[in-house]
């Protein structure tokens, strides 16, 4: 169960850029209720900003015409919504069953040493954040690492080294 609850107030107003604005209007026609836009609206926010602030929650609620508490409920329940800024390279390592069997711990240990980060932490320069996540659905090519949404399969320390070298 997610135990995330804290929102960050930036002090700056939030609104969608033109592209997200259009996408919101396209999608809203697809559902018979506006509340169905809560998850898509949170995704649009995260695509735009990388994370979801208190102001964004208020904006989404206002835009949909629902209670901010209902948007907050979803933003905190669903663990892929970032409630604070993440590293420019957000590295997720699958920790579950098949990846565990096929050596995910070596990957985690290497990243811990190399980046000086524990899962859940963000580097001081904001370049990396590390997270151990539940099954990513790539069990046949375990262990798997996801960097900024891109999957990297059959990982080992050597491949990880080359991958890290490409990240800016």
């Amino acid at each position, binding site marked *: *169960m997610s135990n995330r609850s804290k929102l960050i107030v930036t002090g700056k107003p939030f609104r969608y850029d033109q592209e997200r604005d259009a996408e919101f209007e396209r*999608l809203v026609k*697809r*559902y*018979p*209720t506006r*509340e*169905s*836009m*809560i*998850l*898509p609206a*949170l*995704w649009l926010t995260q695509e735009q900003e990388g994370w979801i602030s208190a102001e964004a929650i208020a904006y989404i609620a206002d835009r949909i015409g*629902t209670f901010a508490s*209902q948007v907050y*409920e*979803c933003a905190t*329940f*669903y*663990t*892929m*919504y970032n409630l604070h800024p993440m590293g420019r390279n957000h590295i997720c390592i699958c*920790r*579950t*069953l*098949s990846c*565990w*069997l*096929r*050596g*995910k*711990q070596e990957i*985690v*240990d290497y990243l811990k040493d190399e980046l000086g980060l524990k899962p859940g932490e963000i580097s001081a320069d904001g370049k990396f954040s590390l997270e151990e*996540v*539940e*099954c*990513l*659905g*790539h*069990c*046949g*090519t*375990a262990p798997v690492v*996801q960097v900024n*949404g*891109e*999957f990297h399969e059959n990982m080992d320390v050597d491949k990880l080294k080359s991958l890290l070298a490409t990240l800016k």
Partner: protein
Amino acid sequence: MEVKILSAKFNIKDAHKLEVARQHGAYSRLDKLFAMEPVAVTEEVKSSGLRGRGGAGFPAGLKWSFLPKGLNKPVYLTVNSDESEPATFKDRFILVRDPHLLIEGIIICCYAIGCHDAYIYIRGEYTTQVKALQAAIDEAYSAGFLGEKVGGHDFKLDVTVHRGAGAYICGEETALLESIEGKKGQPRSKPPFPAVEGLYGCPTIINNVQTIASLPYIIENGAEAYKQYGTEKSPGTHLFGISGHVQKPGMYELPLGLPILEVIEKVAGGVLNGKKLKAIIPGGSSTPVLTPEDAKTVTLDYESMAAHKTMFGSGGIVVLDETVDIVKLVENLAQFYHHESCGQCTPCREGLGWILKIVKKILRREGTMGDIDLLVELCDNIEMKTVCVLSAACTMPVRSYLNKFRHEFEAYVNQGTSAQTDVKQG
């Protein structure tokens, strides 16, 4: 042993593109479909014996026939592409390599059940997959296979992709509906079942991606052709995901009913690096474990799995070699289910955390024999005392490990050591 029904286009270059897909038969069944009465489509699917491929194995055509007749409400189809059960990695191949097969299946199902708005619920982690799927849907709209007149026929259909955001529970069908409605994914009490009162309070059919993708073959070739594959009660083919300690892990399409040990040996190349087989998880992490002795008589179909007190599940087979520390494996699984509990029901929210704490205590060499019994008691007190089956998805396998590998738990308690000498897992 492999067959190519669902995976026929998986190895064709660019088969995800409409033009290539059409050269290989995509949307070629629509004329035949729209010449049939919708009820005849349902009957054909019923007689094909196609069962739900998400894990429960409920007959698909029968599910459709539960829709109430003559209601003045829209009917919805939601396609379950949440695919979050550990060891399950089959549906994403359809999403990426042959998304038009899924879309054509959606058209078939929607025509049969009288649905004009379908939603595909896809797990949030599937970033590249959602792009591939959306691109295919966009192409299908442009070519007139979706929209006001599907394939030029007098049938309107809109398909919308709805992204989840990291909650295993949303693979449970009513949690999935809550999520589309803009709520946190907490399952609903049943009844009413979704076929009667589902999305937005309307009759709703929820089918897995693979189930829907099986439909074009059935419509093109008929139920009898489909039933040539598999067993009498478990007909057809399935995308099996084989992972863990095997030489050739991967996704393989096989008819149902093959002996599990033969499949591991011949299809997946046997146990990794010639090690000895310790156990097999037959159908995703929530299915009770099989020992090599159990496995001798197990075949890959719903009936054989049930006869061996386990489940066919999602077809995600995990092979465990002799080095696996079962207590640590249970810790890994308990952590998953505890993390993924939606928090609605106390036995699950609290109980799975207790299981995890006790297993951790045993691993710290602080456990007692009483703790092992307490784990069994906890399983009994959690299972089936909750709104959905997430808690049972944890307790059923945990109980099986306690039954079949109790000596490994006892070794930690009595000797203060793992029963394993060569343990490499974390």
